[in-house]
């Protein structure tokens, strides 16, 4: 075991534990903060796997923008404290059955294929290489995605109108 694999296992433990704390915590603010830790660990993992551009984007977009958006919404809405202790466990059997079946099938697929367990060579794609690649091969997809972001912006603005604005524009409701 060398330094790279030690870092990988450490990051894997951090990400897994933070995500487990996220999905089990009762308080939404705690859940979001644990998820930020998980996403920062994922950003470091991306850097380890040779994607520094994606590591920066993961830290900026996921841990920065999306999670702060969640926090703002949680604090904005004055959510009534908890959702009830029983709700997590009343479907426990079905969840364990479905997730266990799917998980064992995936493990079977993974371990049945002997080619998936040889050590990878460390490699790094610089942001310049990544940008040149993405604008040469996937330029149309970049345009489509930017249009998708525009549509999401307009949709979020439309949904967040208040009633007075609606009547001012002559809306029905």
């Amino acid at each position, binding site marked *: 075991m060398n330094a790279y*694999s030690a870092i990988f296992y450490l990051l*894997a433990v951090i990400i897994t534990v933070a995500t487990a704390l996220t*999905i089990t915590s009762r308080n939404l603010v705690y859940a979001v903060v644990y998820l930020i830790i998980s996403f920062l660990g994922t950003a470091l993992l*991306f850097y380890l796997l040779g994607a520094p551009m994606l590591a920066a984007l993961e830290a900026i977009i996921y841990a920065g923008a999306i999670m702060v958006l969640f926090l703002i919404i949680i604090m904005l*809405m004055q959510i009534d404290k908890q959702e009830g202790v029983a709700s997590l466990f009343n479907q426990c059997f079905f*969840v364990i059955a479905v997730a266990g079946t799917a998980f064992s099938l995936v493990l079977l697929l993974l371990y049945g294929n002997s080619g*998936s367990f040889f050590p990878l060579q460390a490699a790094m*794609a610089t942001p310049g290489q990544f940008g040149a690649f993405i604008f040469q091969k996937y330029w149309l997809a970049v345009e489509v995605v930017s249009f998708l*972001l525009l549509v999401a912006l307009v949709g979020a603005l439309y*949904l967040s109108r208040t009633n007075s604005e609606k009547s001012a524009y002559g809306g029905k409701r």
Partner: protein
Amino acid sequence: MIVSYGEILLLAICLFFMGMICVVTRRNLLMILIGVEIMLNAAGIAFVGAALRWHSLDGQAFVLFLMAVAASEVAVGLALIVYAHRHSGTLNGDGYNLMKG
């Protein structure tokens, strides 16, 4: 020389199933959205590992698109949740049982 692709895939699978469990068991709409985020993130880890495994940048390109889709999904999803909370006063997924908003 770092770990094998199978171990990266194992981590991604664990995270994906955690997100799935979160989506299925939690009642709060915000927690359901967080579970979807966890699943998307797990898919991203699998993509980046595959990009390293086959020395191809296509996997990293798809993670970039995945992040953009996740951002727009969260924006529209949170706007919908705020809208629904304003109209029904609850965040519990079981509380939405009327067709007429």
